[in-house]
């Protein structure tokens, strides 16, 4: 609706204030948030509008500054039960890169001959989304088809709708038996996000997922925090009448990719924003990601990285205080210095609003601090504690002294 000509730098935001009676916005809407770092606000009573907006901006700046509360909130997922914990535990922890695997599970290849155009779907829908997110890390995408892979749970039969259903309580038990077949990526160190498309076997078709009220879920899919998502794709029963088994099934990739991309957004921590009342939120562009969402993700990840790096270095310092036997070699010391320098640089960049360079610096800080903390050379003298050394010295001395007397 609003044409945004200029490309803006990351971390910046442009707010247009229009007059109260302007027809740019629909009559009942007071504000509009665009997909590319712009917003339009209908200003009531001229100067007042600027004051209100100014106060809001100060509030936002305070919320985003690097204070102890902000850093503690970034690590809130470590706390046992908190009102933030469910939201915090869902996204993947910050890492240098991610691997995304799409798997098609066909437990009954005798009945269903399933084809999916995953290459086209990845090219059209997933790759643009990941390209938009490329500032947040390296992504690699894979896909595979697994045959004879069953879910670990037997679905129950519902005679009212003559279909099978999976109860919400059964869902946590579904993932474990399947995971052994998924082939955890041995060749890379990045965390893996798995998206499974399950075509239920002929004996258990159609299969629906029920939520806690007993109603079938609209998308027939669920996701598990920090792991991935599973969608159940039911074969149209009309396809069985025509031909003999196996029935050829062409998967509708649009429906599937809608669900998977929405789950991907949630698993990356791109949360639904809380839209204020009377505000019009524009839809995302064709990539499925609004630019200011990317900024928000970069800021959140930078803060999380800084919190992690700081905690790691603090733990190392505390450990050194308690155990005097730890050896710190020169290269470990240089990693620690590098981590501290990166933390300071990232904090400065965050303060001046350069999100991309702050994120890169924060990643470097995490890498250096982990390399220093987990270096195996720290443990070389660890199993030679002081009391054993004292025993070795005091025993001969005590013998000597008794002999003298």
């Amino acid at each position, binding site marked *: 609706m609003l044409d945004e000509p200029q490309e803006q730098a990351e971390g910046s935001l442009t707010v247009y204030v229009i007059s109260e009676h302007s027809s740019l916005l629909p009559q009942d809407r007071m504000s509009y948030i665009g997909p590319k770092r712009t917003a339009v606000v209908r200003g009531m009573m001229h100067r007042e509008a600027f004051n209100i907006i100014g106060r809001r901006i100060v509030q936002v700046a305070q919320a985003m500054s690097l204070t102890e509360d902000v850093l503690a909130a970034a690590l809130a997922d470590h706390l046992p039960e908190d009102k933030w914990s469910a939201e915090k535990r*869902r996204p993947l922890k910050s890492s240098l890169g991610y691997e995304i*695997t799409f798997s098609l599970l066909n437990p009954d*290849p*005798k009945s269903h001959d399933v*084809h999916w*155009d*995953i*290459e*086209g779907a*990845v090219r*059209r*829908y997933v*790759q643009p989304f990941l390209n938009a997110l490329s500032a947040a890390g390296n992504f*690699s*995408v*894979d*896909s*595979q*088809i697994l*045959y*004879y*892979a069953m879910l670990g749970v037997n679905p129950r039969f519902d005679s009212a709708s003559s279909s099978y259903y999976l109860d*919400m309580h059964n*869902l*946590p038990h*579904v*993932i474990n038996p399947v995971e*052994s*077949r998924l*082939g955890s*990526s*041995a*060749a*890379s160190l990045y965390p893996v996000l798995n998206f499974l498309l399950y075509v239920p076997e002929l004996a258990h078709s159609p299969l629906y*997922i029920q*939520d806690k009220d007993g109603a079938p*879920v609209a*998308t027939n*899919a*669920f*996701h*598990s*925090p920090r792991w991935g998502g599973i969608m159940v794709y039911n074969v149209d029963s009309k396809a069985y009448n025509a031909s003999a088994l*196996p029935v050829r099934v*062409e998967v509708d*990739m*649009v429906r599937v*990719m*809608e*669900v998977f*991309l*929405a*789950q991907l957004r*949630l698993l990356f921590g791109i949360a*639904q924003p809380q839209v204020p009342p009377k505000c019009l939120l524009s*839809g*995302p*562009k*064709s990539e*499925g990601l609004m630019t200011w969402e990317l900024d928000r993700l970069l800021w959140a990840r930078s803060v999380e990285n800084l919190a992690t790096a700081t905690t790691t270095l603090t733990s190392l310092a505390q450990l050194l205080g308690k155990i005097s036997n730890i050896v710190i070699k020169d290269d470990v010391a240089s990693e620690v210095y590098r981590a501290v320098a990166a933390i300071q640089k990232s904090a400065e960049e965050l303060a001046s609003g350069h999100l991309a360079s702050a994120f890169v610096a924060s990643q470097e800080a995490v890498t250096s601090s982990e390399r220093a903390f987990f270096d195996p050379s720290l443990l070389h003298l660890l199993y030679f504690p002081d009391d054993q050394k004292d025993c070795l010295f005091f025993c001969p001395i005590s013998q000597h002294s008794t002999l003298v007397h």
Partner: protein
Amino acid sequence: MAAAMPLALFVLLLLGPSGWCLADPQRDSLREELVITPLPSGDVAATFQFRTRWDSELQREGVSHYRLFPKALGQLISKYSLRELHLSFTQGFWRTRYWGPPFLQAPSGAELWVWFQDTVTDVDKSWKELSNVLSGIFCASLNFIDSTNTVTPTASFKPLGLANDTDHYFLRYAVLPREVVCTENLTPWKKLLPCSSKAGLSVLLKADRLFHTSYHSQAVHIRPVCRNARCTSISWELRQTLSVVFDAFITGQGKKDWSLFRMFSRTLTEPCPLASESRVYVDITNYNQDNETLEVNPPPTTTYQDVILGTRKTYAIYDLLDTAMINNSRNLNIQLKWKRPPENGYIHYQPAQDRLQPHLLEMLIQLPANSVTKVSIQFERALLKWTEYTPDPNHGFYVSPSVLSALVPSMVAANPVDWEESPLFNSLFPVSDGSNYFVRLYTEPLLVNLPTPDFSMPYNVICLTCTVVAVCYGSFYNLLTRTFHIEEPRTGGLAKRLANLIRRIRGVPPL
């Protein structure tokens, strides 16, 4: 925790047409095969081969899509720029003298040899990382492969697939003879199969029967091959092979009839729907139907003849994709039965059971003339409990002598014996006909000197324990019960002392 939330979906603006998707051409194919070979010694060898061919380019960049070819191995090929990979796990040794030449032999333990692409800059670093990753995939200790057991052969390990030029700098070979093969290695190997032990030939792969064999070898081979006869393009080929030899005595209890159920405790129920070819070949070269020495059930409809490993062989073919052979109501259980016992003779063997019965080995053999026949048997004595030793254990342990009973052909025909008339030395053994006579010979008994435990140890332990207890107890008792009295110093001479002594004896108070 799983959360099934109704997701608020975004409407994606789709660029380009979405609905029409062409049927993707099949880019990989699977063939599976089982070869059953009866061996001259009465044992049976079974060799499984699962071949997946993946028609794609040699260098995989970007997004990879896997169907039948397993993702774990595909990622290895692209990450470490492999050209060929050969990995085998073997338990036992293939006895060529008794069993004939093998299709593919592997050394005992684990063997890994890899050809890298010539784009690899640091081959040793890639080799180290690859062996670590493989040890994770196959649950084996391949991470012990390092420069101390890796070599670069220059002549014997040429690439088995396509190769343009062979610079031996890119070849690495390592063997770990200490590696033991067990179910933990078989399970990830089976997981790489597309039909994954649920259909086709892989239902026969049950670990408890496969490891109850004299020889077990499982291997993974990856190499590039030509896609067609003119070799215009290249495909990846993955072969998974498994060879086992079932022993006639351990598995078959001495009887010489084999069936799929006897060997694997399973029968074939259905073909793998993903396989383009699924066949069982039975070697019937040495036995033809006229002779009726070997019976194969169900009778084969097609046979295959070729020169294999230098000799002409005939195989009976059972095609699992043929619905006449196998369908929903019939299982396929191939049976082999020897009608007439082979000329090796009769062997009866009864293994020992600890503290119940000894070994018994009886053999009926025909000795050729002017020859020397040596029979040897290996046995172990288990350690005895210390109460089971004889009073003179250092004398040694006896092994009973062997018995040779023979009917020796006689030079001169003898008359049948009249028991009462003939002398006693002539009527020891009954003689059935005059052409041979019975003789029973014995070997010397064997006296084996085995290490014995130190029988004085119980005595030593008792002495030491009693001493320690006595010293501790005595000191403690002293501490608790000793009291001190003050004694007056004695005065007076010898006479007074004697008088006191007498008075004490009489019971009278002293002076």
